[in-house]
């Protein structure tokens, strides 16, 4: 929820007058959020409670993506995450055989020692996984399972069996972009999975579920659709019994557009989920990543600063290895600490926050588009799952460049030179004319244009890393912050294989 720390006068040490969520009509809506709403909705323990406590203390929670097939290495990774110089939560990322439900392939790969790209939680005996977590995962260090499955019941059963109760995904966000499962089946499977997860509340647990709807394809999806799907998935989770959720949004290519988007997401979440513990989680860029360690680091630092400015409570980091391979624990650790340091630095920037109104005071129509999309979907059916299925069938929701047969596939996007995402075509989505100002839409991309757009962020940040003084930060003519100059060089030495 944005607006946390956005209130004036309270807890100045936390966030001195953050401009991102105030100064607009958002203020009245957001004002009740930070401390007033917390006691009513926030559970006493669990993942959501941990994040709420960190937020109250003024810290951005940072989290890696991390999963290794070997239990001992998985345990070492979790321990290192816990012991990082940052407020962290742990992650067990699953391998893609487990994700797709091919447990036989996961078992075979383990038996034959073939490399797996994550932790096979449904294949290792539950006792093994309990031993991985023992003495590490607890109320002070919650661990979330990240998977990517359109049909996650086997995963939810496996994580509950080892004492975990936090995971992520969604009936749309883990179906359309990442599977060929019919949407209707994914909705049914996610409904059962939500109910299974929520059933642990009977035993005093506080299960937590995060939407992945703020990512959709990772890049080239305009913010309004990301926000709409994230909010709709959170409403789906609530309908099926979850009382602690988080809403995701993935960093895109223009910080101003992202700041506006995160502010809108927080506002809509506050409005539509008033009775549920919730927070906004930002994903560091999910598209084609800078190749240079310096570029990757700058992009991550921008994500952390964005999270602080726009009131996200948690950030999932990316590492300097992202463009090349699955990161090591050490690379993840450095990413966590880099992000935490950048967040603290951003929070301590009184000059900028107290000064000119934040750039996100500009309203480019993201909120109007997101409201139109959410409203159109919710009108289709009182049941959120059925409404989602009907919405995709009607093309009211249409994920650009998504190949899934249940996606209408008529929406297209492109990237302005400054990184702003634009619709080239909205297909049948009910947002024509809302944000385009009546001007001509940018042309449909071909293969070369697509590659240029997909690599825009990579190119921009690699260039910035190669030429640091041009860092286009508006505020002070301070020479160059020591951190951005010295560290990339150090990282070069450390990360070059």
């Amino acid at each position, binding site marked *: 929820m944005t607006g946390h720390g956005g209130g004036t006068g309270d807890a100045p040490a936390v966030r001195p007058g953050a401009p991102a969520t105030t100064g607009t009509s958002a203020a009245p809506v957001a004002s009740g959020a930070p401390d007033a709403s917390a006691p009513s909705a926030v559970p006493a323990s669990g993942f959501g409670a941990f994040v709420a406590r960190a937020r109250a203390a003024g810290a951005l929670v940072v989290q890696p993506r991390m999963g290794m097939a070997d239990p001992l290495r998985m345990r070492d990774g979790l321990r290192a995450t816990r012991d990082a110089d940052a407020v962290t939560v742990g992650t067990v990322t699953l391998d893609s055989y487990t994700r797709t439900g091919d447990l036989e392939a996961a078992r075979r*790969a383990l038996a034959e020692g073939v490399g*797996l790209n994550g932790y096979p939680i449904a294949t290792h005996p539950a006792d093994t996984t309990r031993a991985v977590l023992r003495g590490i995962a607890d109320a002070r260090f919650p661990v979330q399972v990240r998977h990517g499955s359109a049909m996650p019941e086997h995963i939810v059963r496996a994580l509950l069996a080892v004492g975990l109760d936090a995971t992520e995904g969604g009936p749309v966000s883990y179906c359309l972009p990442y*599977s060929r499962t019919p949407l209707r089946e994914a909705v049914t499977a996610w409904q059962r999975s939500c109910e299974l997860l929520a059933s642990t509340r009977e035993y005093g647990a506080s299960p937590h579920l995060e939407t992945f709807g703020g990512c959709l394809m990772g890049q080239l999806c305009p913010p309004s659709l990301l926000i709409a799907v994230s909010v709709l998935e959170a409403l789906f989770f609530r309908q099926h019994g979850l009382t602690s959720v988080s809403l995701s949004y993935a960093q895109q290519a223009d910080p101003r557009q992202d700041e506006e988007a995160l502010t809108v997401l927080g506002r809509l979440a506050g409005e539509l989920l008033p009775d549920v513990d919730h927070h906004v989680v930002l994903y560091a860029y999910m598209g084609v990543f800078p190749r240079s360690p310096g570029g990757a680091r700058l992009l991550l630092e921008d994500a952390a600063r964005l999270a602080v400015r726009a009131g996200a409570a948690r950030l999932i980091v990316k590492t300097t290895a992202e463009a090349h*391979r699955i990161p090591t624990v050490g690379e993840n650790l450095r990413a966590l600490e880099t992000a935490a340091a950048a967040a603290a630095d951003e929070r301590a920037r009184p000059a900028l926050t107290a000064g000119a109104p934040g750039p996100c005071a500009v309203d480019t129509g993201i909120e109007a588009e997101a409201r139109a999309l959410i409203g159109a979907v919710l009108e289709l059916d009182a049941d959120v799952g059925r409404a989602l299925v009907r919405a995709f069938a009607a093309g009211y929701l249409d994920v650009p*460049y998504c*190949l899934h*047969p249940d996606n209408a*596939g008529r929406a297209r996007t492109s990237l302005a030179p400054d990184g702003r995402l634009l619709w080239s075509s909205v297909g049948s989505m009910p947002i024509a004319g809302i944000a385009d100002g009546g001007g001509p839409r940018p042309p449909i991309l*071909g*293969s070369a244009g697509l590659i240029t757009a997909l690599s825009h962020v990579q190119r921009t940040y690699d260039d910035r890393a190669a030429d640091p003084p041009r860092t286009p930060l508006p505020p002070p003519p301070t020479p160059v912050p020591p951190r951005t100059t010295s560290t990339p060089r150090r990282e070069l030495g450390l990360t070059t294989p």
Partner: protein
Amino acid sequence: MEQHAVEQHGKAEPTGLEVVVTTMASDSHTWNLVFLQLLLEELGHRVTNLGACVPDELLVAECRRIEPDLIVLSSVNGHGFNDGMRVIEALRARPELARTPTVIGGKLGISGSGTPARQRALLTAGFDGVFEEGGSVLDFQSFVGSLPAAASRTLPAGSGVLL
């Protein structure tokens, strides 16, 4: 055709190839597939894009149904080598696909760029080309360019004229 999000881009030439673009069962990535479809269509070829997480049986069934001039397997999740070795065996086991030009590319292992040993193993297993990350698009284009145009072929697909 409309089933897939990326509509025909550019004009398919009469001499264009019939191409199946696909990934494998465990791989959920699709940008690589979207790009390959656009690229091949701009070169005048017709593409059937099978999308994410294609099970082996579906992959083989679609290729048997379409009898393409070229099969392009693309994978970036790190399981590509393992999955590719299995899939090529299944494809080559079908008489009508035994000689269909079939290539694989992307990020095929979980630890960085390809090794010569990995490439050799894939070629030995039956692939006609291996295009691992890093400047391989041009190599791929020239491979595609080296294939005989569809209309000029007098023999049905898989008759052994190519290799």
